[in-house]
């Protein structure tokens, strides 16, 4: 079965990213396909490459990046939500004349249409939020 995942909250403050990570690992373990993981609202902050959590804590951005690389996951950060909150990839950095970008490896920035498409294409859309 094809799953779409929506994550609406950032890492650490809320459990939503952790819950989604456990859910996605379980789904992959059962042989399901993850069509896309869409990060919206403060969820876009899961894609920052600049977080430096303590060494004895989990590094959620890194875990998502590694899981994406291993399983070819499509991690999409909403562009409108990301721009408000200061999440930029290299292209967006140039376009807006900023001097830094902060999107982790394995994430890409795209539009809200990607969320709607996930709703259409996936058999189930599961939302994790506050």
């Amino acid at each position, binding site marked *: 079965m*094809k799953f779409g995942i929506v994550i609406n909250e950032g890492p650490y403050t809320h459990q939503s990213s952790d819950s989604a990570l456990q859910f996605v690992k379980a789904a992959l373990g059962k042989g399901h396909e993850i069509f896309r993981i869409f990060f919206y*609202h403060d969820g876009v902050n899961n894609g920052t490459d600049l977080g430096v959590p303590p060494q004895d804590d989990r590094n959620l951005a890194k875990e998502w990046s590694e899981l994406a690389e291993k399983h070819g996951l499509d991690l999409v950060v909403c562009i409108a939500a990301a721009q408000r909150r200061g999440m930029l990839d290299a292209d967006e950095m140039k376009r807006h004349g900023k001097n830094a970008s902060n999107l982790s490896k394995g994430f890409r920035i795209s539009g*809200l249409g990607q969320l709607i498409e996930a*709703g*259409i294409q996936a*058999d189930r*859309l599961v939302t994790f939020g506050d």
Partner: protein
Amino acid sequence: METAEGVVKKFCYMNRKAPYGTIYALESLEVVLIAAAFDQDISLVFADDGVYQLTKDQDTDGIGMKNFSKTYSALGDYDINKIYVEKESLEERGLSVDDLQALTYEDEDDDWAEKNSLFVVGREELTALIDEQDVVLSF
């Protein structure tokens, strides 16, 4: 349902939070405006504190935030004309439909006649409506 090209799914946008205190109402609206381009069967539901999103006379001058409430009245232009408000949520908050914006659309199948697109529905009707959805997005 087969997820082939051209499939039309029932999408429900569930709004349960008041505007301005958090960004969910505004960013829900942003999703809905994009979703309108995808030719899916869209319903908007306003329940619990979500009913406050539709109040008329919103004035945000004093809080330094953009008043996005006018956008709801433009939804009809995007062919979004199934907007449901839970009756019990209104009543519990001492509100009536008169406290909400009038939302309408022009029906292209009826010589562009202006028609109501906001429906106050009771709990049972709303329960049935939610249950028949293919995709529920909660904000």
